[in-house]
């Protein structure tokens, strides 16, 4: 009968397609693998003050402050250097230990201590990233949000400038919102 033949052909086309396809990842990735990839890209599109990376192979240090929701996926995903700078991943329990980081991911469990954390990091050239509600509005640099199952981010460009960091316009253009909330900032 022709009916099963057509079905079989469609099935075979599907199977064949799957076996030979080499794609850049599926349409969905685990949440924290996606966020790790975003962190890598933030490193790409942010400039630290001159002298932050004295050698061409000075490491870029990513710190995770508080409860680590990434787990080993963070180290496994960011496994290649950027422009010659290898990545080093460190985990901290308190902000005092978080010295020397270039990017600091602050766990959502630190919500109550957020004010204190941002105060102690003030003036230091650290790209602070978090999922905490209102993180960007309160002075954090980049805040992750989820919209329709996709990851988006908010940027506080003023706070970035006062930290001595320069965020590339490529990154700013992709942000859902830029603080402070003035027309000029958009």
């Amino acid at each position: 009968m022709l009916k099963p033949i057509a079905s079989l052909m469609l099935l075979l086309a599907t199977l064949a397609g799957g076996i030979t396809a080499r794609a850049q990842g599926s349409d969905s990735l685990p949440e924290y693998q996606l966020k790790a990839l975003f962190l890598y890209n933030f490193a790409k599109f942010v400039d630290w003050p001159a002298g932050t990376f004295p050698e061409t192979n000075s490491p870029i240090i990513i710190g995770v402050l508080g409860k680590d929701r990434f787990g080993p996926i963070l180290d496994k995903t960011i496994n290649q250097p950027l422009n010659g700078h290898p990545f080093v991943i460190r985990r901290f329990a308190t902000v005092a230990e978080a010295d020397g980081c270039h990017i600091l991911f602050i766990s959502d469990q630190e919500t109550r201590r957020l004010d204190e954390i941002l105060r102690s990091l003030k003036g230091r050239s650290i790209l602070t990233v978090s999922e905490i509600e209102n993180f960007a509005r309160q002075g954090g640099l980049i805040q992750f949000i989820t919209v329709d199952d996709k990851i988006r981010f908010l940027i506080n460009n003023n706070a970035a400038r006062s930290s001595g960091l320069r965020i590339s316009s490529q990154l700013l253009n992709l942000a859902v919102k830029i603080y402070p909330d003035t027309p000029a900032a958009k």
Partner: protein
Amino acid sequence: MEADSRGRQWTRTAARISRISLLLLAWFTTSVTRADTNLLTLSLSDLMTKSIMRVSEPLSSVPAAVAVVTGNDIHRSGARTIPEALRLVPGLNVAQLDAAQWAVSARGFNDVFANKLLVMQDGRSIYTPLFSGVFWDVQGTMMEDIDRIEVVRGPGATLWGANAVNGVINIITKSAKETQGTLLTAGGGTQYRGFAGARYGGQLNENTHYRFYAAYANHNDAVLPNGNEAFDSWHLARGGFRVDWDAGDQNSFTFQGDGYAGWFHQIYGLFNPANPPTFSSFVRDEYEPRGGNVLGRWTRVFSASSELKLQVYYDRTEREAVIFREERDTVDLDLQHQFALGERNNVVWGFGYRVTSDREANNPTITFTPDNRTVHLFSAFVQDELTMLRNDAGENVVNLTFGSKFEHNDYTGIEIQPGARLLWAPRQRHTLWASISRAVRTPSRAEDDIALTQPTPGGPVTIYGNRRFESEELTAYELGYRARLHETFSVDAAAFYNVYDNLRSIEFGPSPTQPPGPFPTFPLHAENRLRGETYGAEFSAEWRVNDRWRLRPAYTFFEMQLRAGPGSTDTMSLQDEGKNPQHQFSLRSSMTLPHNIDFDCTFRYVDNLSAINVSSYVTADVRLGWRINRHWEIAVVGQNLVENRHAEFRPSFITTQTADIPRSVYGQVTCRF
């Protein structure tokens, strides 16, 4: 001659399909020559088109046959209505009768008036107390707003109450925070002549988010078995809003509402006393259903293990057809409290009150006595989840969940529905569960009060309701096994043995409680003299073949044996055994190709339905989507592709046209910003 042209159409389709697959194959092979790329080379814009993968782990601790269809699954399948999305659920019987009517059930008893399933949307019951089933033609919301659909097969009576006999379906929409920004979508094709949707989400302040949506769909006629167009096209507009307010650490509020208005074509077989010798007329009707609802919910979190939920909703539906006219108002209040008791107990208890009031307009075909009625339902439940054994790592190894629902309804008084479920996790990532439960399906307005007259070859027949109609009863024995056998492979199996008593039977003779109608028709009436058993098994698996390809097969086996009890004159209802397929099989393939192209196929096989002369069928739905960038997405969807047209189900009780489902295709553009 028909077979010949069918054969030619076949060859053309097969040729078309092989041509497309060859093209795809060629495209893939050329991309193979590029070196294996890794995730770090994905651009920021690319990352922003990726969805967060939902991990289905939480189901492993549920001692029931549960399946969750995520919003992403629905998006990838191309389903534009809720029943189409329900086809993705392993174990459900979903059959399309015509352009607007569907028969949906679990574990047997499927019918356009199937009455053994509890269906809810965001906690609001969407089955009608008129016949304890769902008017699927008007259900829905903006498909892009659905977060997930949770389906429990088997009695959910302990928590959900009467009518959750064979299963519970809960359609859950996304919170307002998750639907911020603007979304516009539009499309059209052969069966879906045109559809469009718009949604806007914003925030009033840091803690308050809202969204508004509006959607419209215009659907073509299906086809008659002889190939001509049926008369069942429809169009429907709907809109709604949702506001979520996070009032601090402990309190959150939700306020939402929807409204819809539709115009549907249908041909009804009416009883016409002025038209001998058949006393019937077939009338082309345009029926107009309308409805709306508002719902408010307050959740208060006391601690990590204690939460209180209070919900109130008002629902209004109007349906105006030549055969039937009803206005119905429902108000429902529900309170639920969950708390931990000591180290080992997790208790949930609650109570609810629902009042539903209707006004029916009577006609010779359908008459209700009385023509308006208000019914009250009081309910309370309590359930305890007892951890009997923990392992050294503090994880639950043996869990016993037991409880009961208590209801008082205006039809049968007090109903008690107890249940017990045992969960055993012998190893990490392996779960075994077993349960025994009792569930009842309380009488509906129709079973009590209707007089439905339909023309038959032997003359007009009237089925009368019966105020003494009792609840149908179920005692269910279930077993299940769930395991993650490998990082990339997991299985889920469930088996059940259901014993039914007091099932509805249609007996000869006038009703003991309803007065005979004014016309001399042959009387039948509703009683509870049918009983029977059903048993079956449901298997589903998920195999992540690689990063970009996921396969999900599912198989369901089902057997039903019905018996007429002593004194029963019903031979008709025994035929219902043959309205359920013995075997159902589906295979879903989800693939992501280079350049952000999604390719999804769903193959379905459904066994024949001997009682209604519907032969077995294989069909396939295919979606090819392209996520162009973080703003734009386009897709082409083909549905029911294998055969030119095929039948899935047939009408019952109320004569409407007999239609087949044709092959169809549509295209869609979506823009988000």
